[in-house]
């Protein structure tokens, strides 16, 4: 019975080939758009999550200078108020796992005929712990390097690539601002940060070396920012509070006066970014779903025309024994075939399109089985839903009315 109905549905669709194809096109475009949008949205989401994972967990960044100072908004770290001693004191707070004071600056690096301008961060060995950053070669510098302000450096992957090419940099000497530095190790790859910067384009040196020999500071012992890692996500707010209290006390800030530093919860900011990416991804999907809906309405439109055109045929079938449900099934099958075939083509085009987009523009795309299945199921449901009404309309015709229809 179903077999006979399938071949009849196929025949009916073949009788009006152009119309069938155009109806299908609505479905194809809808499914294709959904798959493409989901791929782009989820790709972006995945990239954000990778950046967050590369950042390290339960992180605070403490910047010197207040966010507002005497009514004038100051950039973070404008006036150096944080010191290495502050960092040490923070490290002794309960629930603080590791602290890394940092003094960044820009410098020209030279190795042989190659030179490269990049960010050089003066910091402590704990920086690697805080940022959860492993070395891919060599060893980190130690506390004794910090004490004696030796000229040693760890290079990020991008720096290595630009200065050394395929050469092994460990043990080699480069010149930073014309002074020789020995390369102790190479940092593992981190990729893009949340704000889109290349985290691998960086050099780490002991903070004392940076302060005394590389950049120099007007205020001895100050750092631009301090990174602190809490022991767990649960203690984040308690730690934030105690850092604030400690620094106010240490900086002798009177009750009611403004902070000369600011504490930012990087992990919370990252989570916000992740949520934003997710909302974006969902919105893209929702917009694409509208085209799926339009495709469904297209099916309904064509099916309604088809029912009207074939009213006499419906009458003949009823006169020789077709039940209402036989007629219903026949028209529903046509809608299902159109939507399912449209779906399949849409999935193929969507996946192909997503791959082409990522190839052409370098945009991150992520095609998941779940998104394909979702698009398929939604599209098939839309087809059946919109096919249902015309099919039911046909099945409710009275035989004599259908036969008399001109």
């Amino acid at each position, binding site marked *: 019975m179903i077999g006979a109905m399938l071949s009849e549905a196929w025949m009916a669709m073949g009788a009006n080939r152009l119309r069938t194809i155009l109806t299908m096109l609505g479905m194809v475009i809808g499914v294709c758009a959904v798959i493409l949008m989901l791929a782009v949205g989820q790709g972006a989401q995945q990239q954000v999550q990778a950046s967050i994972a590369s950042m390290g967990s339960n992180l605070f960044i403490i910047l010197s200078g207040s966010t507002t100072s005497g009514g004038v908004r100051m950039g973070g770290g404008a006036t150096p108020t944080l010191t290495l001693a502050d960092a040490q004191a923070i490290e002794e707070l309960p629930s603080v796992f590791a602290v890394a004071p940092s003094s960044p600056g820009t410098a020209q690096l030279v190795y042989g005929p190659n030179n490269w301008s990049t960010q050089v961060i003066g910091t402590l060995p704990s920086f690697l712990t805080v940022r959860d950053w492993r070395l891919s070669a060599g060893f980190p510098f130690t506390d004794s390097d910090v004490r004696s302000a030796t000229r040693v450096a760890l290079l990020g992957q991008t720096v290595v690539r630009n200065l050394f090419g395929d050469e092994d940099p460990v043990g080699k000497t480069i010149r930073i601002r014309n002074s020789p530095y020995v390369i102790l190790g190479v940092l593992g790859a981190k990729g893009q940060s949340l704000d889109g910067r290349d985290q691998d384009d960086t050099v780490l040196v002991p903070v004392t070396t940076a302060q005394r020999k590389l950049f120099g500071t007007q205020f001895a012992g100050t750092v631009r920012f301090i990174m602190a890692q809490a022991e767990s996500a649960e203690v984040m707010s308690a730690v934030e509070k105690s850092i604030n209290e400690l620094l106010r006390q240490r900086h002798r800030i009177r009750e009611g006066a403004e902070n000369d530093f600011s504490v930012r919860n990087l992990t919370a900011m990252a989570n916000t970014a992740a949520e934003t990416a997710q909302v974006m991804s969902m919105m893209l999907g929702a917009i694409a779903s509208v085209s799926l809906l339009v495709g469904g309405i297209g099916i309904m439109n064509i099916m309604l025309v088809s029912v009207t055109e074939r009213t006499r045929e419906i009458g003949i079938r009823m006169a*020789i024994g077709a039940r209402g449900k036989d007629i219903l099934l026949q028209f529903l099958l046509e809608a299902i075939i159109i939507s399912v075939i449209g779906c399949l083509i849409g999935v193929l085009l969507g996946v192909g399109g997503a791959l082409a987009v990522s190839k052409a523009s370098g945009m991150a795309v992520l095609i998941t089985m779940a998104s394909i299945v979702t698009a398929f199921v939604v599209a098939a449901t839309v087809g059946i839903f919109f096919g249902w009404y015309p099919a039911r309309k046909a099945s409710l015709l009275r*035989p004599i009315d259908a036969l008399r229809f001109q």
Partner: protein
Amino acid sequence: MPEAHEMSANPVIRIERLYKEYVTDAGSVPVLKDVATTVMPGEFIAIMGPSGSGKSTFMNILGCLDVATSGTYLLNGRDVNTQSGDELAHLRNQVIGFVFQGFNLLPRASLEDNVALPLIYSGIPRAERMVRANEMLEKVGLGSYRRSRPNQISGGQQQRVAIARALVNRPKLILADEPTGNLDTHTSQEIMALFTELNERDGITIVLVTHESDIAAHARRLVRLSDGCIVYDGLVVHAAPAHLETTS
């Protein structure tokens, strides 16, 4: 001889106090008024009457394509008024074969597919459908046209295909509303010969509507309708001469 046999059997059709009104914008129009009749198995009945007298309306009700406004209609002993839509479809599929003036074949389907169509709705597998459809096409003399389309054959041939389709489910009752109305005299006689054979050899009960006395002459019983009432019901030979047809 068939008379005695018929009397002992249960009637195929029993109709009492049948009324039909069409509701139009201008109000309700009574078309059938208190019609009563009984059809026994094996009968061959011609229904005649002037245009607009309600013949088609009556046939559509007999064929379960339309419902009466009031009255009783027992088909095969079953009260049609109490049947559900699906049960009516089953009756149209299994008990009745309907033949239309305009043939009503599906234009896109081949002749064998057209004939096999009722079997789809009886749930018969494809192989058997094709065997039976071709048997029926052979029976009406169109075995060699099985793959043709309706628009590739003549009107008389199309009506034969329609008859084959009506017969394919081996119904008890054939209802034909002016089956020869679109055909010339010669072709009409061929179709009538086919009906006569079905009635005499296979014992199928036939009720047909016609405007022509020489078509009606093939039947044994004549029912004459006028203005929605049965004005004559008896043997064909006792029918009024054809010239009275137009004046009644």
